[in-house]
């Protein structure tokens, strides 16, 4: 982009009025530094003064090391020297990210492109510098936004499942209540219940525990948190996510689970991976429900050295026109859909070094989504046990 190595303009620079040249350079938004073969600064424009907190008059004549972190500064002389003696380019003509040092000691990221010019006064190097900090900040903002989005979609899934959760909690609460009331009644009638009361109380406690588990699972799923990777077996994780999605589903769905059982573990954030499975299974159910006899198949297997989780349904498949935008956010065909499920799922998959793929089906075949995850690297000895 900013390859000045063959710039025809520069040799003439020496003949242009220096004042005029400087005034042009000073209007540049990028920092511009020109150095000679001995790395002495010849030109230091206004943007550089700001960037490094050094006045041009102070900078000119000094070694360019003054704007570099100590560790670079040491190598820099060698680079210039080695290039001049060998002609091997380490940076010339290539933009790259380096670090600069402000007069106050702050070290910050810079994009640096270096061009070279032969002038009557000898070889000169011109460096164009762009402070990367604003960009880094916006990247951070983007990452924040993305995690917010992931959270949002999770919450909306929960919202929809809210009624289902209430239903699921109703079961243990019903059992708990009836067990306790049975004891109460027997007790108030003076019946001899000693023989069975221990057994009933155990059952009641188990039901309370079951209610607690349901809440725990939901909490794990809803709460926003940093991704935490751990090495896990995929099958139980997928099984649990399928269960979670089916909680009190109003549609009657046949669910076929075909787990490999012997897959190598994956290094993943279990909650995020389960979120993908929940999204895919919800979509599958929503697609298949109108068929009258909805059926989905969830399968895990090893393919080309990756762990693959497939979610297949017997719905209508995905029409060709919808395919290109399928994984884009806010692409939804549903009245109440946000169109976030697949977008977020693919982002998570790719953040895990994997991917989310689709076989659109159609012509009587339902869609089949494949979540591909790389196998975890073998554990290093210190992590064993």
């Amino acid at each position, binding site marked *: 982009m900013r390859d000045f190595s063959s710039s025809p303009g520069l040799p003439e620079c020496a003949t242009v009025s220096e004042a005029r040249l400087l005034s042009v350079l000073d209007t540049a938004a990028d920092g511009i530094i020109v150095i000679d073969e001995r790395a002495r600064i010849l030109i230091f424009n206004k943007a550089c003064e700001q960037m490094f907190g050094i006045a041009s008059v102070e900078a000119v004549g000094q070694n360019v090391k003054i704007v570099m972190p100590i560790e670079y500064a040491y190598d820099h002389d060698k680079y210039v020297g080695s290039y001049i003696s060998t002609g091997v380019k380490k940076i010339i003509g290539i933009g790259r990210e380096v670090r600069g040092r402000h007069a106050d000691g702050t070290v910050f990221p810079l994009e640096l492109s270096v061009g070279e010019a032969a002038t009557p006064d000898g070889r000169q190097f011109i460096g164009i510098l762009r402070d990367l900090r604003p960009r880094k900040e916006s990247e951070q903002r983007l990452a924040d936004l993305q995690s917010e989005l992931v959270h949002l979609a999770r919450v909306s899934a929960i919202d929809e499942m809210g*009624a289902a959760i*209430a*239903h*699921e909690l*109703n*079961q*243990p*609460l*019903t*059992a*708990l*209540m*009836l*067990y306790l*009331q*049975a004891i109460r*009644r*027997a007790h108030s009638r003076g019946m001899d219940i000693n023989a069975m009361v221990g057994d*009933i109380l155990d*059952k009641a406690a*188990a*039901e309370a525990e*079951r209610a607690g588990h349901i809440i725990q699972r939901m909490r794990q799923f809803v709460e926003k948190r940093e991704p935490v990777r751990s090495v896990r077996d995929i099958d139980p994780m997928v099984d649990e996510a399928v269960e979670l999605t089916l909680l*009190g589903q*109003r549609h*009657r769905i046949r669910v076929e689970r075909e787990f490999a059982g012997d897959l190598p573990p994956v290094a993943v954030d279990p909650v995020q991976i389960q979120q993908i499975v929940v999204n895919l299974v919800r979509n599958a159910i929503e697609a298949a429900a109108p068929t009258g006899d909805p059926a989905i198949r969830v399968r895990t297997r090893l393919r080309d050295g990756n762990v693959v989780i497939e979610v297949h349904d017997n719905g209508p498949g995905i029409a060709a026109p919808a395919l290109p935008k399928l994984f884009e956010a806010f692409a939804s065909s549903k009245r109440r859909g946000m169109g976030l499920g697949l977008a977020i799922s693919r982002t998570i998959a790719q953040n895990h070094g994997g991917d989310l793929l689709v076989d659109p089906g159609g012509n009587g075949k339902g869609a089949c989504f494949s979540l591909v995850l790389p196998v975890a690297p073998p554990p290093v000895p210190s992590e064993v046990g």
Partner: protein
Amino acid sequence: MRVHVVEDDAGVSDSLSLILANLGHDVISYPDAESLFRSPPPDGSDTVIVDLTLPGIPGAQVVRWLLKMAAVPRVVVITGQSQSAIDHQLRGLAPAGVVRKPLTVEALARALPAS
């Protein structure tokens, strides 16, 4: 009185049997509609408690079948679903009682005939 309980949740089914026995009833439990249909049918003096969410044949289907019998037993629906979901599934059906979960012995006793 004989009470048939069609409920797939083991905990709910077990505690229901216990409390119904406690109330003085003979209880027969079924984990799904299919096993109810395979057994000798309830008669007109029996009560059948049916959970709406069953695996396989849905609870509403069981209710419809029971209400069409020559000697209609007393049918009591139990469910944890939302009112709109209940209304939707029970369209055109009039069971003797609908009791929403979580169940209490008082609510159950109200839905059962006095014995």
